[in-house]
């Protein structure tokens, strides 16, 4: 279905090629997962499939890419629209119309399909992706999972044989990600579509993949079966790490397979004392909210939240998209004035403070880290706040490969986060807030982040992380707070909270249920202890 024939690709301004001599053949009906480090060229590989690279992005492509026998050299993306459907990273910015039904019809209108056919396909697609109850809804009012499904549907109606998706679940909470993946597997099973998707969150998708394409830093692409790719990968999802630790053969890729292999491991661990809660020394209370209510016009975003965060604590703030996590962080940093109730950070009300005072008290890394940038290069950015040396040291630890002369906007998602984090941490605020920090981060970058966060927590920083990433929460958080509809529905030790809810349980906890183990490193330590 898709053929890459000695394909190399180089962007106009780059000195080294992004893809080098790629030789690939993807047959009909496969679900192919593209993995690789941040900025390795995954998106470029995906864009080469429908001709966006080079027709849209610029750059030079040598060799031949053909889809369903059509050469992308002679067919720009618009002429391939009936063969390849492409869904970009941010579905909302790709929407042309404003309601679900019209968005689904848009591609067909461009193709000039007969109105009767259009009507039928829209209905089929609504059913296939479970969108029929949303057909008249405005796109901006949908949740991110629903938006992602509409984006998939909007290319699907054109009747393509290939679906290309760039990080379809990265921004989604676990239940929404499952919705999208369920829809995708159904497309592969029922319609025989070829699906090519890039994703950092391997733990979510690797079990569904038929093949794995790994884009290496030099631009080479390795084609492998999932199990063998995972066996070799330096960093893998927890289920694979656990399998490697326990020496399971064949290596399980899904929680279900791992659970079946885990009987003996569970017996060995049953005798070992459960991992002590990773709560460090907890100091004085840094931030406190009392009956905090925040309303936007007629929407109640927070409905009476009581929360205390102490020095040295790492609190994971979890909950669906739109549960009020970002609002809580914004109120703690004084961006929002509470409608009712009180907030105190270090005894002061953040919304009453001037911005220069706030910076020394609370640091927030926003969901779009690039919003923080105001300079023309990374080097200027780091010195802009007067903590240049500390910031440079932190950045060297978090992302050693960032060139100081780069424009901040040219950085990859993960590098942007690293720069933003270095900026915020350099001011050494007693309260650090992170909004969805692992979106677009690969595993090595994530483990460096965890290391730095632990270190700051040890020295007495109070940290609150709003996240969908259950593995991150299990790894670093001492306490987990779950928000739903603006209310705290659970607050307690991470181990207790995340194991209580299937949506928020990390993979290791699911595999070893009911034993209270959360991460692979805990199990490793437990096994070492039992061997002694």
């Amino acid at each position, binding site marked *: 279905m898709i053929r890459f024939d000695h394909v190399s690709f180089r962007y106009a301004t780059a000195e080294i090629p992004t893809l080098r001599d790629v030789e690939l053949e993807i047959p009909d009906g496969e679900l192919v997962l593209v993995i690789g480090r941040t900025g390795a060229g995954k998106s470029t590989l995906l864009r080469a499939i429908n001709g966006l690279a080079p027709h849209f992005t610029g750059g030079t492509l040598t060799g031949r890419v053909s889809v369903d026998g059509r050469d992308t050299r002679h067919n720009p993306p618009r002429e391939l629209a009936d063969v390849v459907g492409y869904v970009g990273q941010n579905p909302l910015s790709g929407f042309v119309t404003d309601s679900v039904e019209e968005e689904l019809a*848009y591609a067909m209108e461009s193709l000039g399909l007969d109105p009767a056919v259009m009507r039928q396909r829209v209905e089929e697609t609504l059913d296939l992706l479970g969108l029929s109850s949303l057909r008249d809804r405005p796109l901006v009012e949908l949740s991110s999972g629903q938006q992602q499904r509409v984006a998939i549907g909007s290319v699907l109606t054109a009747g393509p044989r290939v679906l290309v998706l760039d990080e379809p679940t990265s921004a989604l909470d676990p239940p929404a990600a499952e919705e999208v993946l369920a829809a995708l597997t159904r497309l592969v099973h029922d319609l025989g579509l070829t699906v090519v998707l890039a994703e950092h969150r391997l733990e979510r998708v690797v079990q569904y993949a038929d093949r794995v394409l790994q884009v290496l830093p030099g631009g080479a692409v390795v084609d492998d079966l999932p199990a063998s790719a995972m066996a070799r990968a330096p960093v893998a999802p927890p289920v694979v790490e656990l399998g490697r630790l326990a020496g399971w053969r064949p290596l399980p890729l899904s929680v279900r397979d791992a659970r079946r292999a885990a009987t003996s491991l569970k017996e060995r661990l049953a005798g070992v004392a459960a991992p002590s809660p990773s709560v460090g020394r907890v100091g004085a209370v840094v931030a406190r909210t009392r009956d905090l209510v925040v309303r936007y016009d007629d929407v109640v975003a927070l409905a009476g939240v009581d929360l205390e965060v102490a020095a040295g604590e790492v609190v994971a703030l979890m909950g669906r998209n739109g549960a009020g996590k970002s609002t809580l962080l914004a109120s703690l940093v004084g961006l929002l004035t509470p409608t009712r109730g009180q907030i105190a950070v270090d005894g002061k009300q953040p919304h009453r403070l001037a911005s220069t005072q706030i910076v020394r008290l609370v640091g927030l890394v926003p969901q779009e880290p690039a919003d923080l940038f105001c300079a023309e290069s990374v080097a200027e950015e780091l010195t802009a*706040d007067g903590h240049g040396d500390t910031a440079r040291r932190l950045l060297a630890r978090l992302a050693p490969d960032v060139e100081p002369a780069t424009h901040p906007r040219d950085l990859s998602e993960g590098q942007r986060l690293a720069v933003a984090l270095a900026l915020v941490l350099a001011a050494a605020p007693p309260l650090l807030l992170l909004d969805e920090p692992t979106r677009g981060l690969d595993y090595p970058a994530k483990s460096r982040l965890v290391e730095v966060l632990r270190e700051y927590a040890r020295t007495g920083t109070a940290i609150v992380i709003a996240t969908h990433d259950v593995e991150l929460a299990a790894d670093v958080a001492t306490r987990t707070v779950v928000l739903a509809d603006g209310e705290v529905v659970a607050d307690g030790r991470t181990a207790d909270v995340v194991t209580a809810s299937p949506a928020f349980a990390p993979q290791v906890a699911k595999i070893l249920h009911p034993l209270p183990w959360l991460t692979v490193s805990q199990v490793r330590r437990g096994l070492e202890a039992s061997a002694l």
Partner: protein
Amino acid sequence: MTRPLHPGAWWAWALLLATAATRTTNPLLLGLALGVASFVVAGRRTPRGGRAFGFFVRLGAFVLAIRLVFETLFGSPLPGHVLVRLPSVPLPSALAGLRIGGAVTAESLVSAGYGGLQLATLLICLGAANSLASPRRLLRSLPGALYELGVAVTVAMSFAPQLVLAGSRVRRARRLRGKSTSGLRGWVGSALPVLQDGLESSIDLAAAMDSRGFGRRGPSSRTRARAASSALLIGMLAVAAAMYGLLAAGSPALIGLPLLLGGSGIAAAAVLLGGHGVVRTKYRPDAWGAPEWLVVAAGLAAVLGMIGAGRVAPGSLHTGAYPIVAPALPWPAVVGLAMALLPAFLSTKRPASSRRIETGELIGAAR
């Protein structure tokens, strides 16, 4: 009737109502027109249209208030009953036509109020059009040759709110770094990231549109498309020149009229020619039937009523402010406006919800 009316019908109705309002400064008639617009909007607006109407109502009220404030401070007063005497600022004789402060008469306020009310009514009619049928839906009904234009307007309309959102996000983020968000520096500092953000999302949109077949070259040849757009341009220029000829005093109407006819003929031919070779089709196009004609006719009735009132009772459309008199209520205008209410009753409302009937219910009903 369950299908929504064609957006063009609603826009025609609202614009005709606005045209009727331009013909009068009679506060009673303007009040009636406002009542008609609000009543129809209350019954027939689209689910999210209420917000647009509210915005235009506030805008209208603001315009009226500004008109009155300016009249009080700077207007040259009509002689009559002095309500209040403001301290006045003497101006040099070179500015003889101007004044600041001074006596404020009831007559001048009333006269300004009539003018302001007329302008507010026009704005509120526009608001009614917006809330009865979204302008995006109207754009969808454009003929094929104008499709690109329609897309450009649609994208621009969604770009503006996005820019506002990005703006507030970036300004918040600047506060997080302890940077000032006010003053010239603050604005310049946040403008750049906002524009970069806007550029990035436009590029995303362009990529998505390209991948979904926007601008596919169909069987229509490129020369033909070019011929169509040049013909459209020439036609439009001719129409513009003709308008100038017709409206500018002193130029002979004999040149204007043929130019107008010729120009609109060329433009119409261009639209037809361009539309002929377009590949794209329309999903669930809005139908234009008898109800649409009725809605337009109702709007037309309002205009005809005003014209009729001008004939039957000359002077009744413009209520004098010096001396202040009670406004007249000419019957043709009242009848016309009453007929403009028709669309509120003409068709049933849209079904409140298209609730699905579950299988269980069917079985339950069968028992």
